[in-house]
Each structure stands twice: as structure tokens, then as C-alpha cells.
């Protein structure tokens, strides 16, 4: 393949991944890695390196808007980033030691979870007003705009949420993805933070989490500029368009179709991992 063909094809695939990732809320990373490895035969390590930098671009771009609108809680984000960055360092360290076959199988399992959430939608819990004592001491509660006024909310179960965030960070560093779905579950379901605050704060945290493993990826040679360039530019452009369309689109049918696509990718990823083709 010539450099021109490769760049053009990767850009198009990444654009689609970013577009679908933004529409479904799963992010571009979970699609771009299997697309690169399965469709174009890119080595798994180059794929996760390129995916990780694209994750920083989309999350920072989207976070810029959410923070300004007052949805993201920068205190919750900063506190939980202690857990996600530590996890990310562990994950990036392991990504250099574990064989690509095993990584492909783990990736496949994460894809199955993503397919499930794409199909069902992320679970939305009922927010609460009173924080528990640890959350009060950490001043994690806050307000967010709802129906034209500021709605107050409380936070609970901080240690459990913190632990899950460590796991989310480790998966992010291991597989070069944002692992936004796990972050949202940790905040919305476990810590009882309102869904809109959870999703936007998760997005806000993804960039910092990915930055903690990006340096390790870069120095190990996972980030090849010739692969990362079209991936980053494609995913970013796709995500920007996806965010614009999201307001008008009927997402339900699309999510269901997307779920089956991801499930197919998961099966192929696991199969290739077991047979040693990745």
C-alpha cells in the first residue's frame, strides 16, 4: 500500500469511528482500534498508540464546551483523576509486557461490554440531594443547570467509585481507549451523581487519564506519527460532526445497529487473538 492510500483509508475509517463514537457516547477509541487492526492489518501497538492520542483530542475538544456550560464538576473530576492516572500508568506499563494476542482478547471483552451499553444505553440512576460524610468532607456535591435553574446534587460511596476509576484508568492505559462507559457507571450508578454531570465529567477526565499513559506510549514507540496523524485528524473531525448531528438525530436505531457492528468486531478480535493472528 502507498503512503497516500494508507493515510486516506485510515482518515476515512477514523472519521466514521469518531462520528459513531460521538453519536453513541462510546468514544472513537473502541471502534478505531479494531478497524485499524482488522481492516488494515496495522499492528495492535501502533493502533492503540494512535487511538490514545485521538482520545485526548476528542475529550478535550468536547470538554471545552461542557465545562463552559457548567455541567462538568471540576472538583469531582480532579479528585477521581488521582485514581484514573495511577491506573493509567499501571495499564500503560502492562501494555508493553502483555503479548498482543492477550491484549486483543481483553479488547474483545471490552467491546462486548460496549456493545451491550450501545444497545441498552447507559443506565441512568436517580440523583440524590444529600452527600454522605466523606463526600461532604471532600465537598464533591454541586449544582448543574436543569430546566432553566440550578439543581443541587449530592454524592455517595466515594471509596467504591474511586476503586472503579482506578480500573477504568488501567483499561484506558492498557488498550488506548477512553473507557468513558466505566467512568460513567462509576459516577452515575455507584456515586449517585446525576447522569448529565457524570457523562460530562467523565469526558473531562478522559484527557488527563490518557495523558498519564501517553508519555509511556510515546517513549516506547507505540505512537507512530504516520499512523497517528490520520487517526487523530479523522476522529476529531468525525466527533465534531457527530456532536452537531446528535441534537437532531434519531439515535435509537443507530445505536442498535452500532451494537451489532461492535459485537461482530468483538468476536473477530477474540477469534484473531486466540488463533494468534493479531
Amino acid at each position, binding site marked *: *500500500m*502507498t*503512503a*497516500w492510500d*494508507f*493515510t486516506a483509508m485510515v482518515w476515512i475509517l477514523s472519521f466514521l469511528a469518531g462520528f459513531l463514537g460521538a453519536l453513541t457516547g462510546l468514544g472513537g477509541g473502541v471502534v478505531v482500534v479494531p478497524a485499524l487492526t482488522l481492516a*488494515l*492489518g*496495522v*499492528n*495492535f*501497538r*501502533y493502533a492503540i498508540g494512535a487511538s490514545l*492520542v485521538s482520545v*485526548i*483530542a476528542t475529550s*478535550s*475538544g468536547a*470538554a*471545552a*464546551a461542557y*465545562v*463552559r456550560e*457548567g455541567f*462538568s464538576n*471540576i*472538583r469531582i473530576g*480532579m*479528585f477521581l483523576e*488521582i485514581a484514573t*492516572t*495511577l491506573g*493509567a*500508568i499501571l495499564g*500503560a506499563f502492562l501494555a508493553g509486557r502483555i503479548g498482543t494476542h492477550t491484549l486483543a482478547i481483553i479488547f474483545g471483552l471490552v467491546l462486548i461490554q460496549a456493545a451491550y451499553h450501545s444497545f441498552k444505553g447507559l443506565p441512568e440512576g436517580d440523583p440524590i440531594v444529600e452527600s454522605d460524610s466523606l463526600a461532604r468532607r*471532600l*465537598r464533591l456535591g454541586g449544582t448543574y443547570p436543569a430546566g432553566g435553574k440550578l439543581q443541587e446534587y449530592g454524592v455517595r460511596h466515594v471509596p467504591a467509585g474511586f476503586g472503579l476509576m482506578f480500573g477504568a484508568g488501567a483499561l484506558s492505559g492498557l488498550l488506548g481507549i477512553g473507557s468513558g462507559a466505566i467512568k460513567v457507571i462509576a459516577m452515575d450508578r455507584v456515586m449517585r451523581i446525576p447522569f448529565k454531570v457524570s457523562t460530562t465529567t467523565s469526558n473531562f477526565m478522559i*484527557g*488527563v487519564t*490518557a*495523558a*498519564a*499513559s501517553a*508519555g*509511556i506510549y*510515546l*517513549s*516506547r*514507540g507505540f*505512537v*507512530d*506519527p*504516520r*499512523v*497517528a*496523524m*490520520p487517526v*487523530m*485528524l479523522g476522529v*476529531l473531525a468525525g466527533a465534531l460532526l457527530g456532536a452537531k448531528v446528535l441534537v437532531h438525530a434519531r439515535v435509537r436505531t443507530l445505536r442498535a445497529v452500532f451494537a451489532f457492528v461492535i459485537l461482530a468486531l468483538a468476536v473477530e478480535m477474540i477469534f484473531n487473538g486466540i488463533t494468534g493472528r493479531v
Partner: protein
Amino acid sequence: MNDRRLETIISRLLRTGVLVAAATVFAGGVLYLIQSHSGRVDYRSFGPGSPALLSLSGIVRSAAQLQSQGLIQLGLVLLIATPVARVAVALAGFALERDRLYTVISLIVLLILAFSLVHAG
């Protein structure tokens, strides 16, 4: 300094960082395609790659010589630096708000990031 103001500053910083990084990557990408569009590429097997693109000093040197891959890599380094700068700005903001708890929490996150970047390089 209050939380609203800090949020506005962070929002601007994130957007500017992503735009500058994307523009740098794009410029490097155009240069790369002009120079080697018909060259054969194959990324099936993983190799450590050019040592000049693995460290910050090597990347800056290569970008300063306007080498296409060095420019792309510089853009990616700027992108990685954007969330790190966001943590530093939040740290300064919390310190100005005299919020001691969150100044310390931001400092811990910044130290973890610094450890990972220093350890990597």
C-alpha cells in the same frame, strides 16, 4: 478568582490546545504526504521506530528542522500537554480561591502526570 471564571479559563485553554495541536499535526501531515505519498508503507510488525521521535528533545530538534514526522509528533506532544496544562491551571485557580484541599488534590494529580512523563522519557 471563582469557580465560574476558572471554568471559562479551562474551557479556553482546552480548545486552544486542541486547535494548535491539530494544526501542527495537519501541517506535518501535508508535508509528509507531499514528500512520500507514493512510498510503500507496512505497519504489520512492530519495531521501536526512529529514536529521534521517541524523546521530547529529539522531537523538538526534528520539528525545528521541519522534518514532517517530527512536526506531526510535536503536534501530538502539544496535544498530550493540553490536559497536563489544564491540571496546572486548575491548581493555580484553586490556590487563588484559597481552596487548600483542592490545591493539594490538583498537586497530587500533577505530580502523578509528571512522574509518568519523566519516567517515560
